[in-house]
């Protein structure tokens, strides 16, 4: 079930990537990607190339979130020349939670606290040397963070 879903999304990502041309430049906030209601739309709009899974990214996020209103996330990677790090929560009303645009001075490690309305796959996409890499983790939420 999980595998199927992942395969499907991966397929969608690849399909989207084939069609995609660079839509938004990172010099400004990619508003459309932030307004998008599903992960496919976010990724097809945000990334102008295929996204491949990578084990060189560490996504630190709890298996069971204490409170959906405050879920600590840390993303770090050994990949070189990191330009951006995005955090996407599939089941949130607008999946794109945050995108960090890095500079050559940056050490690729960012932390942020996010809201999660319900249990969801949380994924991070790292742009490194012009290519996109991702990893993800299922996070269980017992108290949703949308009520306040």
């Amino acid at each position, binding site marked *: 079930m999980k595998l199927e879903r992942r395969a499907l999304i991966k397929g969608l990502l690849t399909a989207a990537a084939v069609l995609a041309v660079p839509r938004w430049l990172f010099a400004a906030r*990619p508003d459309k990607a*932030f307004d998008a209601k599903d992960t496919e739309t976010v990724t097809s709009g945000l990334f102008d190339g295929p996204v491949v899974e990578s084990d060189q990214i560490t996504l630190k996020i709890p298996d069971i979130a204490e409170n959906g209103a405050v879920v600590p996330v840390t993303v770090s990677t050994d990949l070189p020349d990191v330009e951006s790090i995005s955090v996407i929560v599939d089941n949130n009303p607008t999946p794109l939670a945050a995108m960090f645009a890095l500079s050559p001075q*940056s*050490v690729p490690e*960012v*932390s942020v606290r996010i809201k999660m*309305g319900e249990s969801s796959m949380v994924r991070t996409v790292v742009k490194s040397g012009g290519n996109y890499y991702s990893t993800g983790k299922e996070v269980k939420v017992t108290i949703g963070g949308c009520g306040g």
Partner: protein
Amino acid sequence: MGKPIKIKAKIKGDVAEVKALMPHPMESGVRVDADTGEAVPKHYIQEVVCKHNGNVVQTAYWGTAVSKDPYMAFKFKGAKSGDKLEISWRDNTGDTSVSEVEFK
């Protein structure tokens, strides 16, 4: 003008470690006010710019899913004692806040 940003910045070896806490309601537009029964309008930080001695080292773009009173931590190279670190944000209403600290 938004509330000031709380910043903790230190240098470990050749890496600067920065942690910031920004008092802000981060209303997603989904929450319903218990008293009025009406949805609280969206009010959230969209962009956070971090500058080292005037140069942008990182820009964070945020959606509505970042938690209330946002916390952010990041690292960069090339900072030394006495350098300045400035963090500023802008929210969807156009409100802004800027704070600056010096590396010890």
